[in-house]
């Protein structure tokens, strides 16, 4: 699928901001399932970002604006081609033993341990315990089961949580948005010894109605030996397919914050985020 993305973030400050230093994780990744064809960043006031790869392999653009400015706008535009569903490899059925003995096991130690948004407290532990089955078969089915459980028992409710809500808090009220669903699923997977990581990106909603919210999306990837990191979306109870565009991965939200930074000056009066995901029909691409 060929998709075009626009992600615009605007900060309006009370008074002015200065000495602003920021990191952006907005550039879509390129891997076996997708290729980022183009990426353009426009920052107002003007700044030239420095590009680097962070420890999770995510593309980061960092920039600073020293002079006082009343607002900051970051516009990211990209084109991504995702591998069609028909061309995707079937997911390998791996046993848990294979997982434990896999040669890459050293790489995902940190995806089995707690992280800042996802602590292994009693509430999460007992939820995991409720779910565990003695006859668990393969890694992927288990992961899907965990994801489905959240989809069934949680309420998708924008406004019930905030950007700093932890997995524990979301689990307590059994509600949240995709960010929270992803956190809880990751926590439960980790407690089930399935290495799980957070994915930030976009989802092309073919059924989108006029005026419906478009925002950046979050889902989960679990590690399957002989296959790799595989995505599952607990908010929609399905595998991450050609409609999903991955931007960044990490232990949890703290590792992938799309726009993060600090500055000196007045508080933020207003934050506006505009996301736009469209399919580019193939016939309209010049030969």
């Amino acid at each position, binding site marked *: 699928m060929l998709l075009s993305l626009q992600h615009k973030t605007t900060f309006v400050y009370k008074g002015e901001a200065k000495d602003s*230093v920021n990191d952006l994780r907005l550039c879509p990744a390129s891997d076996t399932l997708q290729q980022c064809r183009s990426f353009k960043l426009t920052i107002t006031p003007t700044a030239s970002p420095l590009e*680097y790869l*962070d420890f999770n392999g995510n593309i980061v653009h960092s920039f600073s604006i020293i002079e006082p400015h009343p607002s900051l706008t970051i516009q990211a535009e990209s084109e991504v081609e995702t591998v069609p569903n028909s061309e995707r490899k079937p997911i390998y059925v791996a046993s848990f033993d294979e997982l434990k003995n896999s040669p890459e096991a050293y790489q995902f130690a940190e995806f089995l341990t707690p992280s800042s948004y996802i602590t292994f407290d009693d509430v999460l532990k007992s939820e995991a315990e409720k779910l565990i089955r003695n006859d668990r078969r393969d890694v992927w089915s288990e992961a899907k089961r965990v994801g489905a459980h959240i989809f069934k028992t949680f309420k998708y409710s924008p406004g019930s949580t905030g950007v700093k809500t932890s997995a524990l808090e979301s689990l307590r009220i059994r509600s949240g948005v995709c960010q929270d669903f992803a956190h809880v699923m990751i926590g439960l997977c980790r407690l089930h010894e399935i290495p799980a990581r957070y994915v930030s990106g976009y989802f092309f909603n073919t059924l989108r109605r006029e005026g419906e919210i478009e925002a950046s999306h979050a889902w989960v990837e679990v590690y399957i030996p002989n296959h790799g990191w595989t995505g599952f979306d607990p908010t929609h109870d399905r595998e991450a397919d050609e409609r999903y565009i991955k931007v960044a991965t990490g232990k949890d939200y703290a590792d992938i914050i799309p726009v993060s930074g600090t500055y000196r000056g007045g508080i933020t009066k207003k934050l506006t985020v505009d996301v736009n995901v469209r399919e580019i029909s193939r016939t309209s691409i010049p030969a």
Partner: protein
Amino acid sequence: MPILNPSYSTDNFYDEMMASGGQIRPHYGRLHERLGTLSEDDFNKRRAAVDLAFLRRGVTFTVYNDSEGTERIFPFDLIPRIIPAKEWAQLEAGLIQRITALNLFLHDIYHEQKILKDKVLPAAQILTAKHFRREFMNFSVPKNIYIHICGTDLIRNHAGNYLVLEDNLRCPSGVSYMLENRAAMRRAFPNVFQNYGVQPVEGYADQLLKDLRYIAPKAGSKPNVVLLTPGVYNSAYFEHTFLARQMGIPIVEGRDLIVKSSKVYMRTTAGLVQVDVIYRRIDDDFLDPYVFRSDSVLGVPGLVSAYRAGNVSLANAIGTGVADDKVIYAFVPKMIKYYLDQEPIISNVPTYLASDPKDRKFILDNMEKLVVKSANEAGGYGMLIGPAASKSEVADFKAKVAENPRNFIAQDPIMLSRSPTWCDGKLEGRHIDLRPYILYGEKITVTPGGLTRVALRKGSLVVNSSQGGGSKDTWVLRGES
């Protein structure tokens, strides 16, 4: 009355001055002779003069139990600890070997992680270590040096063998005391000092400055090197100002620096002056409130972005704390083998890791005979000295270890060596350790001697300054006696 008393006993510990049969070791010969000619009065006069000098010069550390802070002189004992040349040469080689391996280790785990891929070290331990700075993966540090300044603590067991107790790779302190102690000793015992031929330590500041300049981002004209201190509230503030003055570099606090366009500048009365190298005495966690997301006011926002852009160099590099961990310490011999294909010249204290199932069983079964320490993870569970602990304390600790094995290591208790020390009017043996200072620049330099810390309380093994410790000058001889 002479200060040497016939009742001086080694009590079956390894004594630096006296061998088990009562003979004086050759390298202490001259000192022993000199002490024999001193009366108690004489000796006390010298002590008083030295103490007064320390007070006047402000050689203090600050104990903060109220917002005021009391200045204390780090107690100094006039009897030096003496090490003959060949013995030192061995230590020097061992320390150089160790820091070389540690530096290669740091480079490796922040790049290809070969040592993890080859399963020589457990990946889980390293990657989840508190001080592993994942933000700095694949980051190239100037001249590939991570550890510019290292203080490795050495102890000596009852057989007289040196062992490494721990490596301090973040902001090791005590150098100023080493330098001040030497100055004091030269004043107190000028003749003995001259006659012995003691290797000098005064070159430390010069060497450090040279090494700091070596890692400047751009080659060429004199780079601007500064010392970054947390400020007056830090207990080692005296040392910071001391070193800055010795090197002739500005001492700055976080608020004196500003980062503009990824370059670091000092705010001076003549405007902004760019900074090239920062010798930072602030822990990673507090360096840059932006990156490490702390509420720290000590750091410089944007410092890490300047570091990352290669516009400023930091000594020590960010991320060395991962090798400071007590669990990682246990693997250093393996690192020496893996990176250098050598056996360690100086051994570790035999250490057991609670995270390893075999070791864990051993620890739990033998806790009353072991020294159990927290591995420096979040929490700080303290330390248990098995042989000195009560049954309930041991039981408590067993529970802690069982619950959180990754956080604990255990070691065989070592009978630390002793050195003659002036205690309440007579010479008695007191336990000591040694902290030599290693500088890594174009080449690795080990300052001859270092800080010998002494546990002043009788029978105590604690050499820490805030808990009744003191220090001695360390004399490394040019010859054997």
